[in-house]
């Protein structure tokens, strides 16, 4: 009993509790046992992966007390660039992937520089990047999806083969039991975990979010910490964009609209504080699964859209309330 209470008092324990609450709902409304089959869980993990990858970057930024609204647009931009490089220009993945990661890093560093160097509020700086990156994605793609159909000068269409990188990323491994994008997501979680808990810069991120002034006075390189957080958020957005393009078999300049809100919701439902200085990527992983299962349960039960939205709102609120530290 005491162990249980100790668990509930930790943020991880409360996030786990919220997840178990959602899982219990799934066990009751199991849609003719569909919830008890592994395929349902595998599909949920695949579907939540892109959001989860964005949420990893979002967590790093939130820990510094900031917010990154540009992740969805940078995802769209990177999906377009990746599709153009590997689908239309036939570049191998070893060139296309680093190039796209560089695009994401550049976008993130630009936001980071605006926040750290020019002291623009994160909300405004990343809002600007959100609008700009979406525009850039539309400009590069001419407003059309970068797909396997390539229009020729005479108006006819040539049909391109799907690059191997697309197929490998959208595949399933281990006897078809785990989607590759899920492994990419878990890799991003691991990387964020290492940054936050094993590197000196991780402590700088927490210190910056906890009390920026105090951190600066005690010698923490606040500016560089922020640059790192936003830069990595851009890199994660690029990873998510590559996964999105591979799963859609195209680069859609409209991809990722409103994904930033889901990424923020994942981080917050996991128990990360928007005030900064606290939290961790383990919480984000639990938050991603909570959101993913919620959507999956509503979907396998074929709940109508109107009820879905109302239920999602109510359940998110209930999950967050469950997590609140008990008033002694």
């Amino acid at each position, binding site marked *: 009993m005491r162990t249980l209470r100790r668990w509930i008092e930790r943020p991880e324990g409360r996030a786990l509790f919220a997840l178990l609450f959602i899982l219990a709902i799934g066990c009751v409304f199991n849609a003719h046992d569909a919830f008890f089959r592994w395929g349902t869980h595998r599909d949920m993990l695949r*579907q939540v992966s892109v959001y989860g990858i964005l949420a990893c970057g979002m967590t790093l930024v939130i820990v510094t007390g900031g917010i990154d609204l540009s992740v969805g647009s940078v995802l769209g931009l990177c999906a377009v660039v990746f599709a153009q490089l590997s689908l239309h220009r036939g570049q191998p993945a070893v060139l296309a992937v680093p190039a796209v990661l560089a695009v994401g890093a550049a976008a993130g560093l630009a936001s980071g520089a605006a926040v750290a160097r020019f002291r623009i509020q994160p909300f405004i700086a990343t809002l600007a990047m959100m609008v700009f990156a979406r525009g850039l994605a539309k400009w590069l793609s001419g407003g059309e999806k970068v797909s396997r159909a390539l229009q020729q000068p005479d108006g006819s269409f040539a049909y391109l083969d799907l690059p191997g990188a697309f197929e490998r990323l959208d595949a399933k491994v281990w006897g078809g039991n785990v989607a590759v994008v899920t492994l990419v997501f878990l890799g991003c979680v691991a990387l964020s975990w290492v940054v936050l808990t094993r590197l000196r810069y991780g402590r700088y991120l927490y210190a910056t979010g906890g009390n920026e002034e105090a951190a600066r006075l005690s010698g923490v390189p606040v500016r560089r910490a922020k640059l790192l957080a936003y830069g990595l958020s851009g890199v994660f957005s690029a990873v998510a964009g590559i996964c999105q393009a591979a*799963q*859609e078999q195209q680069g859609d300049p409209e991809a990722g609209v409103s994904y930033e809100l889901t990424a923020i919701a994942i981080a917050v439902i996991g128990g990360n504080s928007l005030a900064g200085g606290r939290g961790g990527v383990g919480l984000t992983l639990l938050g991603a699964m909570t959101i993913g299962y919620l959507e999956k349960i509503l*979907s396998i039960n074929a709940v109508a*859209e109107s009820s879905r939205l109302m239920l999602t709102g109510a359940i998110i609120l209930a999950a967050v309330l469950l997590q609140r530290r008990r008033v002694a």
Partner: protein
Amino acid sequence: MTTPRTPFALLLTLALASNAFPKDAGKWVVGMSQCNLGEPWRVQMNADVRRAAAAHPELEVVFKDAQNDTLAQRAQIEEFVNSGVDLLIVSPKEAAPLTPPVAEAYRRGIPVIVLDRRVLGSDYTEFIGANNRLIGKAAGAWALRRLAELPAVRKGARARVVELQGLMTSIPAQDRGAGFHEALKGAPVDIVYTADMKWLEPQARLEMESALAVQPRIDLVFAHNDPGAHGAYLAAQAAGRERDIIFVGIDALAQEGQVYVRQGVLAATFEYPTGGREAVEDALKILRHESVEKEVTLRSRVFTPENVAGGGEWLR
């Protein structure tokens, strides 16, 4: 305070004024107000207008994109009227709020062609659009014929259909769904799973995964647009069940739905024509004071693997 800004503002005004409408003598200027270029189908509509107009050097088309904002589109129509265009093509975002500016332009003597979506009343020159309900109905009738050929259905089993709807608060999704259901009325078909995928491919894939998890047998998927049908196909492919299911979509864009048919992803896609070419042709007629019909319903084609190379088949 005004001193440093005034010359700049003056320059800006001059730049805008000189650039507004390069009206050559003997050239007609057509204003094209598009409600949202965020959709590939509407990008295609503008491309069709541009291509058709390129064949007529006496026409110059000025494009504006309202980015899915009703009030922005209203302002753009007013701008066109004030700058004195010779004709307006408007593809309105929604009927009621855009009726007054369209009617105002029409009453001031500017011919207005309304494309795709309607406005209220009759204060416009011509309406050109396709009929979503008829297209949905044609898709339903086609689906029935294909389902009747299935061995299980021949033996008397009821066919099992998944419907992936467009955004159900939008009129096109409502009409496509209603037409499809109308065709299926009384037939031995059960719609075993319905979900609103909001026109979005990732959402369609997610919903189809759920349908596959719950339904052991699915004969046909009807999606309200081609990206939705493609997303459903990818989900079925991941589950190894894509060969057991017939996929049907709507829109048939050359670079999208028609490609999916060529690749064997879709068994059929039903064209939802943009009317861009027809609008330009009728614009020329109106400007030459020839008569046009007040209501033009665009014909639609069905594309299947058998006929896609030959440009599809016209629906009756």
